[in-house]
């Protein structure tokens, strides 16, 4: 059951968007999110929404799959929309008990709901089209300038990529521990939430112990292979901008300019 968890929710197809440099996609997502907050009329949603639809089509990802990314956000979204609806002062349209609905409230709630939806859809499009490893490499390069401020950018990126590599291994190990404990009569299914949470302890402790042991061994193996941090290190797969990245950046500039000047 634990094997089914997919991390990063990568959707593999051979599209132009998938082939874009991860830096382009990362910076592009930021530009997209910023442009979402630049316009003040509903025309802006037509522009950004159209942009999003074009991207999804280009990436060969089914719309249903993209919308599925919204599901965990749905509750939060509704919650925030209802609050905005009821808390915005202005021209009163209706009143009931302590609640008042205003014209401004409806506008604000709709605006915020649409903006958040677009924000989530746009950023999940990035994770759908970029493998976690490429994303890490892209982020390492984008945040590379932080090295001046002594931020260990390379080390953080290395940590993320190692974590990604070990997720399936640790999941397998967790399964093994669960089975081993069940074979000795441990019961993970019955009882209330407190009892169930307590039942997790005999899984977590062996898992922690073995993770630390693994970490130690991995560090030793990395050292034995001359790992000494990011300094003087070359890359097997360096990131290279192609023509399509230039086109992508031009489109993004077009989008942001459009959002600024839209009525």
């Amino acid at each position, binding site marked *: 059951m634990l094997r089914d968890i997919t991390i990063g929710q990568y959707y593999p197809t051979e599209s132009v968007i998938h082939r874009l440099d991860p830096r382009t996609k990362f910076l592009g997502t930021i530009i997209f999110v910023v442009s979402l907050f630049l316009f003040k009329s509903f025309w802006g949603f037509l522009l950004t929404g159209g942009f999003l639809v074009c991207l999804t089509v280009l990436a060969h990802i089914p719309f249903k799959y993209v919308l599925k990314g919204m599901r965990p956000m749905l509750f939060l979204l509704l919650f925030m929309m209802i609050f905005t609806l009821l808390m915005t002062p202005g021209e009163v349209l209706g009143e009931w008990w302590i609640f008042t609905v205003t014209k401004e409230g409806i506008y604000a709630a709709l605006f915020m709901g649409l903006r958040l939806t677009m924000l989530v859809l746009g950023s999940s499009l990035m994770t759908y089209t970029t493998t976690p490893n490429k994303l890490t490499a892209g982020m390492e390069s984008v945040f590379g300038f932080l090295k001046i401020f002594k931020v260990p950018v390379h080390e953080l990126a290395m940590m993320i*990529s190692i974590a990604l590599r070990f997720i399936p291994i640790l999941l397998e190990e967790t399964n093994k521990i669960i089975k081993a404990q069940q074979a000795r009569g441990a019961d993970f299914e019955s009882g209330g939430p407190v009892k169930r949470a307590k039942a997790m302890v005999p899984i977590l402790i062996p898992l922690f112990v073995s993770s630390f042991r693994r970490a130690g061994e991995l560090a030793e193996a*990395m050292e034995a*292979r001359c790992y000494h941090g990011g300094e003087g290190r070359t890359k*097997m797969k360096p990131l290279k901008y192609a023509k399509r990245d230039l086109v992508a950046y031009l489109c993004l500039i077009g989008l942001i300019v459009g959002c600024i000047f839209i009525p």
Partner: protein
Amino acid sequence: MVNFDKVTFEYIRRDEEGNVESINKALNEVDLDVKKGDFIAILGANGSGKSTLARHINALLTPTEGTVFISEMDTKEEKNLLKIRQKTGMVFQNPDNQIIAGLVEEDVGFGPENIGVPTKEIWERVAFALEKVGMTAYREKSPNNLSGGQKQRVAIAGILAMKPECIVLDEPTAMLDPKGRREVIETITELNKKEGITIILITHYMTEVVGADKVYVMSEGNIKMFGTPRQIFKEVERLKKYKLDVPQVTEIAYRLRQNGLNIPECILTVDEFMQCVTG
């Protein structure tokens, strides 16, 4: 190529206040001399100090007393560190805990990346190394889907890509099934014969050392016996004293001989035994 000069290494256990609780001499005045191109095996039971010895060759540990020289470089000197680690690669016991990247080819490229090899040459080296261990078909696969033996071969390829002169293998087969074990031993034997790479194999499986040029037997932090596999396996009783077993077929031949059968001293392989018995 590898020289140990009276090497002593102590594990010091301290209590919470930092006072010395006990000193455990893992290595005790060990002398070792390995020539370039040799295939040597180091045998020893658990706790005999063989893994500690292996970690000295790669400068993961440095001696408390004495000196270790790798191609005339002292392992204690910081500036030699990367050079030593490039010259003497190390393969560990657990295949999962030494593969760093999420793709086979990226993992093989990890070592060359660390020593600053140009991108184009990394790709050449990776192709070469995967070819040598017979894993080219898996280069774009995730290591998680490989068998134990395949993972160890990827680990060996990762070392090969750094163009080492010597590979130290610390119980590389301990966690593998018989098939994986055979794959690994065949791979390193071939690397030794065809590429002239010095192999130092640390193990407690007797059958794996039959192909070695020289065998060292360790116990209590010391090298107790030293010689060709044939010379070593002759002394069945002495090996037992060091908590080691000779290969099964050698043991049978030894017992038969003791019971008065006309069987030559020290049989190493099943084929040899068959010849003596039938022929």
